[in-house]
């Protein structure tokens, strides 16, 4: 009985294979992308690539950063291309030999500060911002710098209690990276965290959730949101103000690489090259809020334009081996321990 079933299955499989190989070219040219990047945001780029390569069957899987990392390390079914905003994890994947170098003119010309080992490429330039509800401005001076934020949290704690939201360093790789980087730049970041803790900060896993909360009115003030998402949101939600901090603003870069064991390496390389190419970056700058890295691209969303608008206090998170320290389990543990401690360190205000 079981034997017959196997036979039947085998026949079915071989039939499918036969059809696949004799049929259209779509079957061979699959491209599996594991990405921590909202599909709807990046859709114009994917559409342009699909239009240029109609024979390629694009399988774009949108997941969280930590899930992307887990999938990339799964030896059973490796993806072709890995895209994630969790920069330390992407770098760790490269350091563990999971990426393969990209041998293309686009890759060679890519700015050195935005790539690592010619394997991992930061292809977007997304500022990290604060966002607040318009009505906050009627109760207090809106924050423009990190110091302003700390002052607000201290002085208007009653107003802001339970109305502050930020990234969860535990649930989100991006959130963890941003707070690590904040703490690296100045120890006063811990004061800010402590102040947020005193204001009973809510921690969300995605920028999307934070923006939704702000629009709902659950939150008045959000800290460390991805500017790319926030700016798009603010266009349709006029009650939300996006503020690029005036003292310093971190810049997060989505990082992409071709997986070492990519089942379709040629297509994968073509896709990453497309992301880095002038055409790909042009679409990025014109039709997505992801900001193009290239200097030779013109559009509303380019790193150059952003610099012109907010001045030169943009600090891209450096793409180098220092990021690897962030994913060290001991360091992560000790950071989270301190995070928890700092959140509790200030006594909540007397009721």
């Amino acid at each position: 009985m079981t034997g017959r079933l196997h036979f039947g299955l085998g026949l079915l499989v071989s039939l499918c294979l036969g059809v696949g190989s004799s049929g259209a070219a779509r079957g061979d040219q699959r491209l599996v992308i594991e990405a921590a990047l909202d599909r709807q945001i990046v859709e114009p780029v994917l559409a342009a690539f699909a239009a240029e390569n109609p024979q390629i069957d694009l399988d774009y899987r949108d997941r969280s950063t930590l899930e992307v990392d887990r999938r990339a390390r799964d030896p059973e079914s490796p993806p072709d291309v890995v895209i994630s905003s969790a920069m330390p994890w992407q770098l760790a994947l490269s350091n563990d030999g999971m990426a393969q170098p990209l041998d293309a003119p686009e890759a060679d010309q890519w700015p050195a500060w935005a790539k690592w080992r010619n394997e991992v490429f930061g292809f977007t330039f997304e500022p990290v911002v604060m966002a607040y509800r318009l009505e906050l401005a009627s109760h207090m001076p809106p924050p423009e710098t990190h110091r302003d934020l700390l002052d607000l949290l201290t002085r208007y704690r009653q107003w802001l209690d339970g109305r502050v939201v930020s990234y969860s360093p535990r649930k989100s790789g991006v959130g963890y990276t941003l707070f690590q980087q904040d703490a690296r730049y100045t120890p006063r970041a811990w004061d800010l965290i402590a102040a947020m803790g005193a204001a009973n900060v809510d921690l969300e896993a995605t920028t999307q959730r934070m923006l939704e909360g702000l629009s709902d009115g659950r939150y008045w003030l959000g800290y460390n949101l991805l500017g790319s998402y926030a700016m798009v949101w603010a266009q349709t939600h006029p009650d939300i103000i996006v503020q690029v901090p005036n003292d310093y603003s971190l810049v997060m870069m989505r990082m992409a690489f071709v997986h070492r064991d990519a089942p379709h390496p040629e297509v994968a390389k073509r896709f990453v090259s497309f992301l880095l190419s002038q055409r790909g970056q042009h679409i990025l700058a014109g039709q997505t809020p992801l900001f193009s890295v290239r200097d030779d691209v013109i559009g509303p969303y380019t790193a150059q334009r952003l610099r012109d608008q907010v001045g030169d206090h943009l600090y891209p998170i450096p793409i180098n081996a220092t990021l690897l320290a962030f994913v060290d389990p001991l360091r992560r543990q000790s950071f989270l321990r301190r995070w928890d401690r700092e959140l509790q360190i200030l006594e909540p205000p007397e009721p």
Partner: protein
Amino acid sequence: MMPPRTSLKRRLTLWLVVIVAGLGTLLLIEAYTSARKAADRAMDGQLEAASLTIAESLQWPEGNPTLEMPASALQILATRWQERVFYWLQADNGTTITQNADLPITAAMRAEARQHPVYLDAIHDGQPIRLSGREVDSAGWDTQEPVQLWVGHTRHGRDLLARELFRKSATRFAAMVLITAALVGIAMHTMLAPLRRLRQALRERRAEENSPLMLDVPREMQELVETLNRLFADQRHHRDALLRFIADASHQLKTPLAGLQSTSELALTSNEPGVWHQALVTVHDSAGRTSRLAGQMLSLTRLQHLGPLHERQPLALDRLMREITVDWADRQDSRDHDLGLAIEAPAPVWVEGESWALRELLNNLIDNAFRYTPPGSEITLALRGDDAWVTLAIEDDGPGVDAESLDRLTRPFERGHRQDTHGSGLGLAIADSIAVRHGSRLQVSNRTPRGLRVCLRLPRCQPPGGSAG
């Protein structure tokens, strides 16, 4: 002319190539290994810096080792070549503190690192890497336990650095080879210049020219030029001797021929058969002498132009001398002289020689003695000697010759100022030629109180058939 088998230039070039290839291989291997070593030395410093930075951050807050991985340490490890970086920390009790890769660290490596910091090559993930391990003593409130700290990175930068260093040495070496080749080329050209000059000088000489070469050549070639000059001098002497011989021979032949002419002319003016007869007798005698002269000249020339000895065989010299003495004693010519034989060596005396030549030598010596001594002279053919050498001598008690002629007696047509004989003047010359053919020379000396002695020394040899004489 022999085809040239070897070329100096080609040989020098070959040697140069062999030496350069051999030496070059060794040098390049050495350069490669030392380039790698230099690169490792330079980059191991980064490993050390990184591991010291990490060691500094190690702490034991609650009895458990912990570490806030310093970002700078990893950046130092990565170097500007963006290496993949690895670290591995383990307490001595075996608990892993933290690591980012399963490094191939063996128990032996850990034991060594316990003694002193170590640097070594390893393979991780299919890639060659460089590892450094050290033991760190860290103190806490509750525990004091050493920690093993290993850091490593891939070899990309080292390989680039080593390749760069190696390329530099290889370039230096190639330049050296080219310069050497050019220098050797120039040197070869310069060194061979005297040879070319010599060739030019030799080519420009006419056949009859035999004056010495006057060339400015290096010391090493001076010998060659001297040898050539000696050869030219020999040629000159030989040629002089030949010319003198021809002149003498013509002169010697001319005298009897002139005599024949005058005798026949005189006879032709007369009608007397008696006179004719007398003239014919004179002509006959003279022709006989001339013919003998010509025969001797021929024999001398032949002796001097004979090839190497090939008919030399052992012969009993005493027996030969006895035979010839007996032969001469029976002749008409010996009636006026007293010919004696003195064998004063252990007989039989075996010597290596050509029988016909030694016979000719003896005949010439005896004939010579008869001709140049007055009638009644005592002539002794003597053989003296010991077991190794014998001296063959002919002695007379004639007038001898004056001292300055002694050395010239063996030259052709030399008669020691004696015009009173019919001798051709070739006897001793022929005898000397034969002596030379037997590896000896004629020695002519005056005897006291009077008389002449001509002798030659010959080595004795084993008798044929091996029976000792």
